C-alpha cells in the first residue's frame, strides 16, 4: 500500500501552468492554493488577477475570479469587498501593474485600510511584454528599455512600494519574501497565510511582496536567477517584515 504524500491543492485546477521554466509564478500559485485549502477559503474567496504574465491565473485557480484592467486591481477588489464584506478578496499583481500604472489605486486602497490582501510579485521586469524596465528594476540592471543598465539620471530610481505602503496608517501587515530557495518558499507560505488571516480578522490592508525570478527576461539560467535574488536583488529589496500591527485590533 502506497501512501499519498503529495497532491495538487483542490483549489487549483488540473491545468498545466504556461509559465516559463524557472518562473516564480507557478510556485506562488501553488502556495496560495495550499493556503486556500488549509484555511478552507475556496467557497468564500474571490481573486483579482492583473494584466501581465499572471493574467491567466483564473485558468489555474478553482475559485471565483474577476479580471481587472492593468493596474486597477486594488480598486476592483475594493468594489468587491464593499459589496461582500464577509468574503476574502485578494489581488495578484506584478511590479509594473502595482508599482507603476496602479500606484494610485494601491496607495489609496491601503490608506483606506481596505480589508483586502495583495500578493505582489516583484521580478523587476515587465515579463509578458518582453522584458522592459519595471518600476522595480534595480540600478545597473539591463532591460530592453534600459540598455546598458538602469541609470538614475536617465531612468530614475526603483520604487520601493512596500516601504511606501508601510508608512500608511491603513496597512496592517506588509512583508517582503522570496521564492528562490526551499527555506524562502516556506517563509513566503507563512507570510501569505498571515496576510489572509489578518483579512479574516478584519485588521485592514495586508500585502506580501515576493521577489521572484524571471530567467527568460533576465537572460540567466534558473539556477543563476535564484542566486541573483540572494546576491543582488535582495540587497536593494531587503527581505523581512516591513509592517505588522500585531495584536492591534485594526490598522486604523
Amino acid at each position: 500500500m502506497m501512501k499519498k504524500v503529495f497532491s495538487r491543492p483542490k483549489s487549483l485546477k488540473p491545468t498545466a501552468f504556461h509559465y516559463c521554466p524557472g518562473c516564480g509564478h507557478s510556485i506562488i500559485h501553488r502556495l496560495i492554493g495550499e493556503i486556500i485549502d488549509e484555511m478552507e477559503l475556496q467557497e468564500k474567496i474571490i481573486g483579482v488577477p492583473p494584466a501581465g504574465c499572471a493574467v491567466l491565473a483564473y485558468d489555474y485557480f478553482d475559485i471565483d475570479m474577476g479580471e481587472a484592467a492593468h493596474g486597477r486591481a486594488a480598486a476592483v477588489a475594493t468594489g468587491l469587498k464593499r459589496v461582500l464584506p464577509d468574503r476574502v478578496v485578494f489581488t495578484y499583481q506584478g511590479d509594473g501593474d502595482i508599482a507603476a500604472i496602479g500606484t494610485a489605486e494601491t496607495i489609496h486602497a491601503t490608506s483606506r485600510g481596505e480589508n483586502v490582501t495583495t500578493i505582489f510579485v516583484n521580478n523587476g521586469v515587465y515579463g509578458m511584454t518582453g522584458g522592459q524596465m519595471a518600476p522595480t528594476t534595480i540600478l545597473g540592471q539591463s532591460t530592453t528599455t534600459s540598455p546598458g543598465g538602469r541609470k538614475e539620471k536617465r531612468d530614475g530610481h526603483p520604487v520601493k512600494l512596500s516601504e511606501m505602503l508601510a508608512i500608511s496608517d491603513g496597512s496592517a501587515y506588509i512583508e517582503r519574501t522570496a521564492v528562490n530557495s526551499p527555506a524562502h518558499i516556506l517563509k513566503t507560505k507563512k507570510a501569505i497565510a498571515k496576510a489572509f488571516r489578518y483579512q479574516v480578522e478584519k485588521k485592514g490592508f495586508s500585502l506580501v511582496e515576493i521577489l521572484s525570478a524571471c530567467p527568460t527576461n533576465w537572460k540567466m539560467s534558473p539556477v543563476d536567477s535564484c542566486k541573483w535574488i540572494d546576491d543582488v536583488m535582495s540587497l536593494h529589496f531587503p527581505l523581512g517584515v516591513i509592517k505588522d500591527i500585531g495584536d492591534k485590533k485594526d490598522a486604523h
Partner: protein
Amino acid sequence: MPKVLMRGNHTVAEAAVRAGCRYYFGYPITPQNETPEYMADRLSKLEGGSFIQAESEIAAINMVIGASMAGGRVMTSSSSPGISLKQEGMSFLSALELPAVIVNMSRGGPGLGNIAPAQSDYFQATRGGGHGDYRTIVLAPASGQELADLTFEAFDLADKYRTPVVILGDGMLGQMMEPVAFRPDVQLRKLPHKDWTLTGARGRPSRIIKSLLLDPVEEEEHNWKLMRKYEKIAKEETRWETFESDDARMLVVAFGTAARIAKGAIKRVREQGLKVGLIRPISLWPFPTRVIRDFSKKVKHFFVFEMNMGQMVDDVKLALEGNAEVHFYGRPGGIILTPLELSRVIGSQYNQKRLG
C-alpha cells in the same frame, strides 16, 4: 406620490437609491458635486450601503466594476473631463458584460473647458469613448422629472442587458431645481436573480469574469454576441418624444436641455403660424433612426439644434439618407440660448425655405 422640489444632482442620487443602488463611487467635479455629497450622506444611513470618494475617476469606475461583479446595483457620476477618465472602465464594463449606471452632467469643452451646460459629449457618449467594438445605452433627460424616471429605468436596463448605461445630462439639469415625484422604491429582493456574479464558489462551480480572449475565434464570437445584444437593444429600447409634429413642414431635432429650449421656440413660431414640430431623441443610443426616416417621407426640412458644434446632426443625416434637407444650428461653450432667440433662427430658416 407627492412632489418635492429638488436640484437635478440630488434627484438623480435619490432616484438611484430608490431604484436599489447601494454602492456609489465618485470623484468631485463641478457641476455634479451635489450627487456624491448626497450619496455620502444617504448611503451611510442605509444598511449595507457604501460610498467612497475615490482617488480618481479611474479608481471610481474600477470600484464600480468590482461592485458590479459582486452583484450590487452601483453608480458613479462625473462631468465631461472626468468621464474621459472613466472611458477605460466603460470599455471593460461593456466587454465584461457588467451592469452599471454612469451619470455625465456635462460641461463646456474640450480640455478643462468651463462648468457651464454643454452637449459636446454626444460623440463620446454614443460612440463609446473607450477602445473596442461596443455600444452604451445613453439616456438624455430634459427635465428633473425625466431625470428621476430615467434613473430608475437605467438600473433596470443595465441589469436586463448586463451593460453600462449612461445618463447624459448637463450642468443645467444638474443644477436646476424642479418639482419631482419619485416612483415606488424598488424592492431589492424582488429583482431577478443574477446567476453570473462573483460571490465565492459555494455550492456551485467557480466562475470567471474576464475579457481577455487571446484566440481570435473566441474574441470574434464575443464580438458577435455583444453585437446581437446591441441589435436587440436597438430594436426594443429606442425612446423618443414628438411635439407638434403631425402637420409640421419643418422638424426640429434636439435632445436634453436643447430640446426644452426648442419646445419654447416652437411654441413661439407656431403662434406666428409656422408649421414647425420637434423630434426629441430620449435614447441617444439607440438613436431613433427609424422614426426620423419615416418622417422624411412627408417632411423635407430638418433643423438640428445642439449645444455643441454639430454632433447628433451626423446621426440625423444618417437616418435621413439624403431624403431631406438638414440645417444645423449649434451654440457650444456653455451658451444657453433663450427660446425667443432660437425661435428667430428657426423662423428665418423656415421663411428662407419658403415653407409658409
